[in-house]
């Protein structure tokens, strides 16, 4: 087995587009769940808003890609309001049910045949990244080459801007969380009624949180399709499994921790690539008998291994990598 190749694959993925856009979406989820206690199981829906907002603005309306990004963000803001208005006054589980359903409905709506002229139906949308790539600064023209890993010039530009957005997102979250606003957010997470009894408008602050976290979800969707070069309404791109992977990344890093979602996304993507290439090589080199798994089954096998790994993590480090075990113990009382 070529361990050098396995590790360079893993590192490439840990710094690559998946880690980057997962980090953005997970930052949003962390604002929702980690800081406010909102159960959003529809982060993929916010990603759809961002991705389609961008692609449709460019392809259908010939708008600048930056305006496309703004359109995507606005769309996700509207989506958040639509979800929040009926549910945020109710018990927390209602939001969970509504978000999981709404995200899936949105995905099915955009792939509807009758909307083909607008959203591309089940084919999705291509050819919207030219303007974005034209804006690439000269120093990225040769791509990024670190010797053991390298990214093409197109990928480099997405990654460069994406990771900067991640850093800005973390800084932004830091400013908010360490403010009286952030204090109200956490109070609502701990006990909404206590916050209300102290004169805090829990409904309003939950709405603000839902919109804000949704904007990060939209940014995740935007950078995802900028990297991929196409938008496709498939389950693996925008379905519920995507939402759950983002949850996994967030929990892995540490829920309610500033860097948790970023580190979690990096490790999640790295580990996934690591198990994938290690398994593939092991199968190819006959370390694993073909009767147990063959090359085709590796794709599924890595998720099984990942699931096992997660179970182990939850048993030995339930608070995640950045989490504080003391805090978790407080949940008990």
């Amino acid at each position, binding site marked *: 087995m070529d361990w050098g190749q396995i590790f360079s694959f893993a590192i490439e993925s840990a710094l690559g587009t998946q880690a980057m856009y997962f980090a953005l979406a997970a930052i949003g989820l962390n604002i929702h769940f980690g800081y406010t206690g909102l159960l959003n199981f529809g982060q993929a829906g916010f990603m759809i808003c961002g991705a389609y907002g961008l692609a449709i603005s460019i392809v259908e309306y010939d708008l600048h890609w930056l305006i496309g990004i703004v359109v995507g963000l606005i769309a996700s803001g509207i989506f958040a309001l639509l979800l929040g208005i009926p549910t945020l006054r109710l018990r927390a589980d209602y939001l969970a049910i509504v978000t999981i359903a709404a995200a899936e409905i949105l995905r099915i709506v955009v792939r509807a045949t009758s909307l083909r002229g607008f959203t591309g139906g089940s084919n999705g949308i291509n050819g919207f990244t030219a303007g974005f790539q034209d804006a690439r600064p000269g120093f990225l023209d040769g791509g990024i080459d670190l010797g053991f890993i390298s990214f093409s010039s197109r990928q480099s530009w997405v990654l460069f801007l994406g990771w900067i957005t991640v850093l800005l997102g973390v800084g932004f979250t830091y400013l*908010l969380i360490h403010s*009286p*606003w952030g204090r109200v957010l956490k109070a609502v997470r*701990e*006990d909404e009624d*206590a*916050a209300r009894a*102290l004169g805090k*408008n829990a409904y309003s602050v939950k709405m603000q949180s839902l919109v804000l976290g949704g904007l990060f979800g939209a940014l995740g969707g935007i950078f995802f399709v900028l990297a991929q070069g196409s938008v496709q309404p498939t389950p693996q791109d925008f379905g519920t499994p995507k939402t759950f992977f983002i949850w996994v990344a967030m929990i892995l890093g540490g829920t309610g921790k500033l860097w948790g979602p970023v580190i979690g996304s990096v490790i999640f993507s790295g580990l996934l690539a690591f198990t994938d290439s290690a398994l593939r090589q092991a199968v190819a080199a006959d370390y694993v008998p073909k009767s147990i798994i063959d090359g085709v089954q590796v794709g599924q096998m890595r998720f099984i291994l990942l699931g096992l790994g997660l179970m182990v993590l939850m048993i030995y480090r339930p608070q995640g990598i950045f989490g504080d075990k003391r805090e978790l113990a*407080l949940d008990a009382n």
Partner: protein
Amino acid sequence: MSRFSELKAVDPSVLDSVAQQPGAAKPDPVLTATGITRRFGGLIAVEVEHLEVQRGLITALIGPNGAGKTTFFNLITGFDLPDDGTWTFEGREMGTLPPHKVARQGMVRTFQLTKALSKITVMDNMKLGAPNQSGENFFRALVHPLWRQQEDEIEERAIALLDRFKLSHMSDEFAGTLSGGQRKLLEMARALMTDPKLIMLDEPMAGVNPALTQSLLGHVKSLRDEGRTVIFVEHDMDVVRDISDWVVVMAEGMIIAEGPHSAIGENQAVVDAYLGTHHDSALTFDDETTAKMAAEAAAGADSAEGTDT
């Protein structure tokens, strides 16, 4: 340092001339409730015809378990909606105001089941209580210099209150690490951070160890000295006797007696309520406790550790 400059201490003797009967008019009521009804299915949990609460004094609300005291608190503070009834606070109609707006009017409550915000530090619990924080606005929150100074002032007040409640040494700990009694103290201190005119305490002494009870009583009395109005629910008749200026007795949702504590123990309706003469509906009176308490209430005798469920 109150935002309500009009707060003035009131002499308890103003109640001397008040009739000792349910619904009695007070010289200067801060809270007036009329015709408040709350039904849960067939059960009438609250049916208060008229209640006036005198400004600046300590009113005890007592009654057996299930009498409707907590439900009454919930209604008055906007946490629950009555089927019927109106009430005014400071002359202002409160009707359907949501809880946070009720609190902003200067009427703050604590909960029977303590609500310490576990994964927030004791200090942040306190700071949360402060009203009118400009940094609670999303956009201002991003620009820290806009609220730094106010934050420092809030912190100063919080430190002073924590000192008073003997919690300063826990300031940086998560509130979840406090003992039950300390949480009661924290909840009360946090409520005081809102600088309330009227503070409603739902069983503030329950589960607090006797050493702390004394200091808690001291704090409640000092609220009166500051001119704040206090309504508190309590089962321990010693406590009621010690600090209350006026006692309101509820049973089966209704107010059955009012008066100074000296008069309440002899009141036949109260003794009946505690002994369960009207014990015909399927209410959850714990007979042993209530009988014991009634005996003590009647005899004006020694301590009883009231527990509620």
